[in-house]
């Protein structure tokens, strides 16, 4: 046993929620109200998974993991599971992944630019979870 949590499992989701709430203040989240869905293609189990973040006034209100179609979100980022895993292991920056076309963003780009650094903060916290991919 490696002692690592399986990425996108319920245990991982709960740990992610705990850390995001503990480590990122509403001020650090620019008190934003927004939603983001990450959609994972080519997952190891052959299914499409999603990870949904819902923020209200900078507070994490929803963090959900599921399969199939994600809930409606203001921003949707889609790409291969492996790309998200590399971001979560801090091997690849999310902005670089977007700039090189490894990830695809759907949503208003002007608003997304305002949130680019915020998303980096989320990823930095998630990268701290020892996970099995």
């Amino acid at each position, binding site marked *: 046993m490696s002692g690592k949590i399986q990425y996108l499992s319920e245990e991982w989701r709960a740990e992610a929620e705990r850390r995001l709430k503990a480590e990122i203040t509403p001020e650090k989240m*620019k008190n934003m109200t927004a939603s983001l869905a990450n959609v994972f293609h080519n997952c190891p189990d052959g299914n499409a998974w999603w990870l949904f973040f819902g923020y209200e006034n900078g507070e994490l209100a929803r963090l959900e993991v599921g399969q199939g179609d994600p809930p409606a979100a203001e921003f949707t980022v*889609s*790409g291969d599971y492996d790309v998200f895993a590399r971001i979560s292991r801090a091997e690849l*920056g999310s*902005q*670089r*992944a*977007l*700039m*090189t*076309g*490894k*990830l*695809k*963003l*759907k949503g*208003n*780009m*002007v608003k*997304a*630019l*305002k949130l*680019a*650094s*915020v998303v*980096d903060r989320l990823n930095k916290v998630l990268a701290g979870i020892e996970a099995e991919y």
Partner: protein
Amino acid sequence: MNQQDTYFIDFPARVKAIQAGMAQHNLDVYLGSRLRTTSWVLDAFCPWRSFVVIPAEGIPTGFTFVIDAARVADESWVGEDNVRGFAPMGGQDQIGQISEFILDLLPGGKGRVGMESGMSNYLPEGWLTHYEYEQFSAALSGCELVNAHTLVDELSLIKDAGTIARFREASRQVDEGHKAVAAALANGGWKGLTETEVAGIAALAMRRAGSVWEWSFTGGNEIASGPRTGYAGGACTPATQRKLAAGEPLMVDIHSMFKLCLGDHAHNYLIAPATDRQLWHADNFVRIVTATLGAYRAGISPADLAEEMMGLAEDGGFADYMVPGFEHGIGMMGDEWRIGKNDGPFPYWTNPDHVYLENEVLICAMQYACPEDGVGFRYENPIVLSKDGCEALSKYPLGVDVVE
């Protein structure tokens, strides 16, 4: 603007007239791409490659380069939700984003889309249009037309000594423009000045120094004051008739041309009294510009540099205010955008992994913007890359000057 205003135009009525024409021609969507169309429909200056998508019913949506989208939204009647910005990112390049938008308007993704193809004698870039291609193909029926622009693009990437000398002279002219602006602002001279007057003061000084044109297609000299300096993600500010005011920032981004080579330098001010918060922003800005100029050299890539500088900004607590790009391309007149060759993941955008070479010239460019504080600063300066660093061609001292 109300209907009694002398300059009132009924833009919703214009759109309805277009939509009536679309119905007559059995068009489900109209994809406008000409400057005349964006002006006539959006009522906003769109100097970057822009598009407007007109649905069968409802308000049109404009698409422009993301660095100018917030300003266009601010000036157009269609509103923030109906102006989108495109960028070289997955799902956000102009073809992908606009296509997806159009498909969402069409049931089952099927329909007739009106578009604009023809030719004209004026437009800066000069790509062969679809119409011209068809006409040349017909007129040269025994020939094969081959897209070959990469030949010129590759050959013009490294600047020779004469080109660099011309750039150096254009930057000297820009510095004269900045000196004239600084002199005009000093000792209370800023009072009553408008952004356009500042643009004119700089233009006169640069022309006296030998410049023949404030070449930028983005409105010549870009002057912004007050909250116009801080558009989210913004980096394009054609001057307006807005008056300078005490306690506000002022951004002076001016352009000269000498023997087809281009001066492009931005300097920033705070009109006193400056608040502690404004000075904090100014310090951040000077810090990151200094670090960026210190980091540029042959052998690195735009993505390397962006990651390093955004890391510095995050550590300094100001990453939220940085546009994550630190350069744009430059060459002789007409070559003002992409860095390097057309070999990146998004066609006709800078390759983020382009490895800089010695004697490339680019504009070290960055935009700092805090819309909530109504403050922003811009830096632009042509730099020549060498093995160990870069030479900044404009010698005007870096800083955010507080005008007492």
